[in-house]
């Protein structure tokens, strides 16, 4: 193990990077419901949040350029562990899973608090953390809150919607951040939290060897007590917001796909179908 116990020399330029990763139901699959109308999370296959993959890729590229260590962190139930192995296969040095039944039902404030406590513990073990990266949002909750809120708990600056990390030097990181209509170039002092939008990074496909090696790597599991979490601040009761109702959104797509080498016939069939469905193009 490269080890969570080594202390890094801050003047060496090598970076200690933590990447927050969330396991989510595969966004390519439609959601599954239980008979009572609630989401059947256990039956849905879990994968790494696609946005977090971009964050992992960004972290790995930084490590390749400047040296250092990349540690993945996730707050999730134990059965999510396989979805997280992909981060190890991509090249993350170590992975910490924060798992505890007392965390169930946490909203973003509680979750970000819990994650910040993991980062704090890593901080003391490593001596410092230079960057905390995560995807801009998760494909299942889409809040985009975790990055800024974790930064707030840690008392660090944060930048959301980062398109690309441009430069790291002299204790500062320069990034290109997306805004409506364009971008901002911002320089921020490290340590800092960055949420990655995924527009400029292509996550590497792990090699077969990486997959096998990752399988043999241990994912370290911590619970609420290991990181000194105040249980009154997490879980259903520790969350200020409460979901009172969930229902399926009405928009179900018809999914009528037309394939034909004869384009005239393809268009005929398409227009006929539109007519049949009562859809007017004008």
């Amino acid at each position, binding site marked *: 193990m490269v080890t969570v116990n080594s202390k890094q020399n801050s003047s060496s330029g090598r970076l200690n990077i933590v990447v927050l990763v969330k396991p989510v139901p595969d*966004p*390519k699959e439609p*959601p599954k419901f239980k008979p009572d109308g609630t*989401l059947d999370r256990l039956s849905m296959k879990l994968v790494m949040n696609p946005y977090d993959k971009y964050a992992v890729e960004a972290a790995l590229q930084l490590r390749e350029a400047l040296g250092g260590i990349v540690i993945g962190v996730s707050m999730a139930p134990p059965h999510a562990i396989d979805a997280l192995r992909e981060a190890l296969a991509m090249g993350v040095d170590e992975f910490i899973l924060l798992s505890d039944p007392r965390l169930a039902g946490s909203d973003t*404030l509680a979750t*970000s608090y819990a994650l910040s406590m993991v980062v704090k513990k890593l901080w003391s073990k490593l001596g410092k953390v230079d960057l905390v990266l995560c995807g801009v949002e998760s*494909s*299942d909750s*889409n*809040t*985009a*809150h975790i*990055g*800024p*809120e974790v*930064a*707030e708990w840690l008392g660090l*600056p*944060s*930048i*959301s919607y980062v398109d690309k990390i441009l430069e790291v030097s002299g204790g500062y990181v320069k990034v290109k951040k*997306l*805004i*409506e*209509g*364009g971008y*901002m*170039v*911002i*320089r*921020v002092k490290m340590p800092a939290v960055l*949420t990655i*939008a*995924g*527009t400029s990074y292509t996550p590497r496909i792990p090699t077969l060897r990486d997959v096998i090696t990752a399988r043999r790597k241990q994912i370290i599991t911590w619970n609420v007590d290991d990181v000194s979490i105040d249980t009154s601040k997490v879980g259903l009761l520790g969350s*200020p*917001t*409460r979901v*009172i*109702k*969930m*229902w*399926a*959104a009405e928009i179900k*797509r*018809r*999914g*009528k*796909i*037309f*394939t*034909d080498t004869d*384009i005239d016939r*393809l*268009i005929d069939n*398409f*227009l006929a179908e*539109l007519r049949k469905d009562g859809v007017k*193009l*004008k």
Partner: protein
Amino acid sequence: MSKIFVYAEVVEEGVVEPSLELIGRARELADKHGFSVSAMLVGFGVRKLADELIYRGASEVHVVDNEVLSKYNLLLYTRAIVEVVKNEKPEIFLFPATTTGRELAPRVAARLGTGITADCTAIEIGDYVDPITGKKYEKLLYQIRPTFGGTIMAAIVTPNHRPQMATVRPGVYSVPPRDTSRSGRIKEWTIDFSEEDVGCLEVLEVKRERRKVDLRSAKIIVSGGRGARPEGFKLIRELAELLGGEVGASRAAVDAGWISYDHQVGLTGQTVKPDIYIAVGISGAIQHVVGMKDSKIIIAINKDPEAPIFRISDYGLVGDLFIIIPKLIERLKVAKS
């Protein structure tokens, strides 16, 4: 009287429309349920925008005007807002779900230790009974939003923490009319910003194109992506004109310089909800889909049968757009006559 605060995000041209939309909605809720509406302005040289906010429906505007705030700075803006909130203690605080709002609001919420819901597509005021304690809450903010990539809706409340915060999706509510006869109170705040906070984050460059085309009111949008190429956009324009619609684009097409930013639909473009959205040569990456997935009918034209766009389409035509669109235009012209 309980206050609803609305964050007025400022860009060079003034207050952004999404903030005005929220003032309008806040005013509606306030009139119906007995709240007052306050706006929050942060920046440099922004004092003069306060009147506009009053004309749109705010009874009160809190202004933090300081030179260090001339460029957007997350930490300084958070500090300013939190200071005002701690003193004014609003019941509700709404932010537009712009890229700024979606990073500023959660920081403010976390600093205040309160709950926040992201990207609401509806906000209401209502009563709530806690099923466990039986405690009754009146006039809570109902925060309604899509999750799971939009396939599931959730209704959320923040019973015990204040302010109840939410970011609201731009375009869900309409910009309220201007009433220059309205008057209101303007309060200016002086806040100390520490040296450290100022030096931490520095904006080096801002590049922003102003939007001249409003796709949000279009009933039909024909949109082009990376697969369209400049030649494809000629066809797209022709089709859009024939159908009486507007032209949209993915970020890839805009970045490639084939069309201006005004037409961009997506995460950092416009969010649209037309009756018909025709995606041409657009793969369906999540950053684009998020801007058009609430369209009534989605039609996709793409050469790649595995393109993700087909998964969220009502109708999909697999084939070469350069052959399909001209033929489609012909057929539609014939049908017209």
